[in-house]
């Protein structure tokens, strides 16, 4: 597959204030590439929610961002606790966010559902005690 663009971001867990950097950059790259704004918004939402989850729950992650002629791929591999029950985590409203995070407006339990809703293909793999891998694909047309 021809790659028009590819970039790897490192995301550090722990500091909520640092979150949103990778997704902001991804958004501006897609703008420069002239991608349609509806698609950009879907990608940015998925990337932001994935980034937030790394910051809130994992130690660190790499986010691989690829633009091919047909689709945009975001692959997030983190090192962290993983998710024991993935189908429970996918339910809207389920969250293990701390009271402090909730007070700040995180922990609506809608991040993973938001990612799924905004992607054309979404895969999640988890190994408890090791981490999770998200594969998000969004079609350009």
């Amino acid at each position, binding site marked *: 597959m021809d790659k028009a663009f590819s970039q790897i971001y490192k995301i550090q867990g722990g500091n909520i204030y640092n979150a949103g950097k990778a997704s902001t950059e991804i*958004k501006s790259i897609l703008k420069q590439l002239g991608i349609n704004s509806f698609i950009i918004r879907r990608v940015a*939402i998925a990337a*932001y929610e994935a980034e937030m989850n790394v910051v809130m729950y994992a130690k660190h992650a790499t986010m691989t961002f690829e633009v091919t002629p047909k689709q945009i791929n975001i692959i997030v591999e983190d090192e962290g606790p993983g998710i024991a029950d993935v189908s429970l985590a996918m339910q809207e409203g389920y969250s293990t966010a701390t009271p402090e995070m909730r007070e*700040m*407006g995180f922990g*609506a339990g*809608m991040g993973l559902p938001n990612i799924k809703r905004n992607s054309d293909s979404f895969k999640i793999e988890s190994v408890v005690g090791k981490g999770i891998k998200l594969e998000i694909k969004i079609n350009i047309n």
Partner: protein
Amino acid sequence: MKLKEIVKKLKLSVRCGENNLDRDVTGGCASDMLSNVIAYSKKGDVWTTIQIHANIVAVAVLKELAAIIIVQGREPADDTIQKAKEENIPLLVSKLSAYEVVGKMYELGVGRN
């Protein structure tokens, strides 16, 4: 409706974005949960919330919201104002509760986008 009309009628204080008050507001959303706003807000909405930290600006940029109204007399943090300036997101504040602010906006005709 123009944002500046809402600012005037609701007597909002402008913490940043004075130069962006000419923009159109097409609807509104009210929530303190960020992912909820990400899921349900629409482009051009004015967002009413009690959150004051910089992540609200990221959410507003992500969803191309018209402005953020911080209610109950809360003040945006300094880095929130800084980021909002950089991203051209007007930050407005009100002493009223979210319930009252949203009610007044509905009376003005700002409904669900």
